[in-house]
């Protein structure tokens, strides 16, 4: 029935497992090493400080200042967090504390669908809805002339994209808080809202920070949707209505020409390396918070 006997099959399976495991576990190091080696040319020839904080981006004449892109990425990410943060907390509290279980059964598929929509589709929707909304409505409201393709548009689209990520974690966190805590507070005469504000919120705080951190890391690396609505102009944005440029968009937009200009490919790989470092750093720190939350909850 089988080609090999039981022991031999066990050996084959075991080798298969170990090889796969080594491959997967070495993935982050491989990524880091690969990108570092590719960007080595640039890091070697320039000061790291110059690369990160110089405002001049002229690859043709060998000037690589990543500052505008870094600032653009930070702006977009912060706007997205400012919008989605409060919405996620309010929603998570509402669906876990105030509504019946049935409501979660509507909410979960909705969150899943939001999380599943590809980022190009978000970008397309941004061009169809958000960009005209900003150029025709929000801009004139503040007395600003804008094309709509702006930091604000990117932030808005991004905020919707990261809501499912943050919300999923927050709902999980508010659900796992032991019911006894709530009961104790209520039995002492606190109202529902006081219980939420003083007991649940305090208990969940490390978890909330972690959820925001994961969302932030996700937003920082998001490429296509941002690329499509941010305007892609290399400058330091003065207001949220200005167009900008982000690190992921820089990589995605220029891969075609990267081999024709010297050191250009190194520069783009350096941008990818920054993204990788930021993502790893945030995820590392946030895991610390999640661990703390888990220990506190246990």
């Amino acid at each position, binding site marked *: 029935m089988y080609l090999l006997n039981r022991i031999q099959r066990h050996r084959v399976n075991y080798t*298969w*497992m170990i090889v796969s495991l080594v491959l*997967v576990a070495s993935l982050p190091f491989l990524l880091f090493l690969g990108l570092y080696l590719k960007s080595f040319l640039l890091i070697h020839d320039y000061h790291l400080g110059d690369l990160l904080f110089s405002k001049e981006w002229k690859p043709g004449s060998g000037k690589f200042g990543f500052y505008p892109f870094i600032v653009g990425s930070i702006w977009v990410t912060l706007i997205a967090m400012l919008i989605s943060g409060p919405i996620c907390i309010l929603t998570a509290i509402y669906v876990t504390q105030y509504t019946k279980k049935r409501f979660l059964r509507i909410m979960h598929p909705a969150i899943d669908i939001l999380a599943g929509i590809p980022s190009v589709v978000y970008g397309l929707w941004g061009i169809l809805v958000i960009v005209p909304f900003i150029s025709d409505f929000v801009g004139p409201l503040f007395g600003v002339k804008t094309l709509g393709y702006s930091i604000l548009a990117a932030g808005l689209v991004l905020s919707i994209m990261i809501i499912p990520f943050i919300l999923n974690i927050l709902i999980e966190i508010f659900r796992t808080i032991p019911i006894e805590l709530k009961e104790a507070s209520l039995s002492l005469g606190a109202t529902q809202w006081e219980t939420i504000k003083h007991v649940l919120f305090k208990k969940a705080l490390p978890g909330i920070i972690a959820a925001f951190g994961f969302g932030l890391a996700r937003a920082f690396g998001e*490429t296509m949707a941002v690329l499509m609505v941010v305007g892609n102009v290399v400058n330091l944005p003065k207001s949220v209505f200005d167009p900008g440029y982000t690190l992921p968009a820089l990589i995605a937009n220029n891969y075609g020409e990267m081999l024709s200009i010297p050191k250009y490919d190194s520069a783009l790989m350096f941008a990818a390396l920054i993204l990788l470092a930021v993502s790893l750093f945030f995820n590392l720190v946030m895991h610390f918070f999640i661990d703390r939350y888990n220990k506190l909850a246990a």
Partner: protein
Amino acid sequence: MKRSKKIEESFFKVLMVIATYSILAVLALIMYSIFAKGIKAMSWEVLTTVPSGGYYYGKGGGILNAILGSLSLAFGATLLAFLIGLPVALYINVFLVRYKNAVRMIRFILDLVWGIPSIVYGAFGFSMMILLGIQTSLLAGTITVTLFILPIMIRSMDEILRTVPIGLSEAAYSLGSNKSELAFKIFTRQTISGIITAILLSFGRGIGDAASVLFTAGYTDNLPNSLMEPVATLPLSIFFQLSSPVPAVQDRAYASALVLTLIILLVSLFSRGLGKRYHKTKINF
């Protein structure tokens, strides 16, 4: 004092209701605009033909190249990720189950890798291609997407495999099974619905991602017929056609977006349905 408490609570309650329903409203709005725009642009020609001459100036043709390209790329990547991912997930939960720290470390690494943006995988894939002298191709795209969906696949399988009760392992051991038999014959059967969900989830991620295939899979108007040739993908066809100034071409971007969204909705619907079906072989404790 009492009044202000009440006012505060109802104030925040109103905010919560607004926040919750605005999320649902935004989802409805997104779906509405994708469907409204997409259905208008949809036709048999768009679905069943490849771009013909003058396609990018608004002449005839369709997106069959992108549909088939995306499907073959996502199938290949999901299969590869499954072949690498399943043994890892099983190894963690069968062989390493006693070594809590090792398991925690591996899960931690997987979570880190999960968080890495897809554009970084794209850039990494591209630099590897230059190193090995490979052109943009179906193969390069498939491998890049495999790396990208691998942590998603493993972690979602892992979450299911964790729930297998220890009694089942003990029963299998007591009947004389060895560890890999326990892993491949018993754990997989007990968690088959979760494994299918993990596969579908990864497939959905893989087919929708554009940033990782942007440099690695390339783009072509032809149907994919070899692993070493470039291949078109739906996300990129949306992206490229949308940046065209010709309205007819933009319309086809909307049609592509509708196709992609429908595929993803179908996949997530399937995973919900299937998840509930396959309980026949499951042993309840």
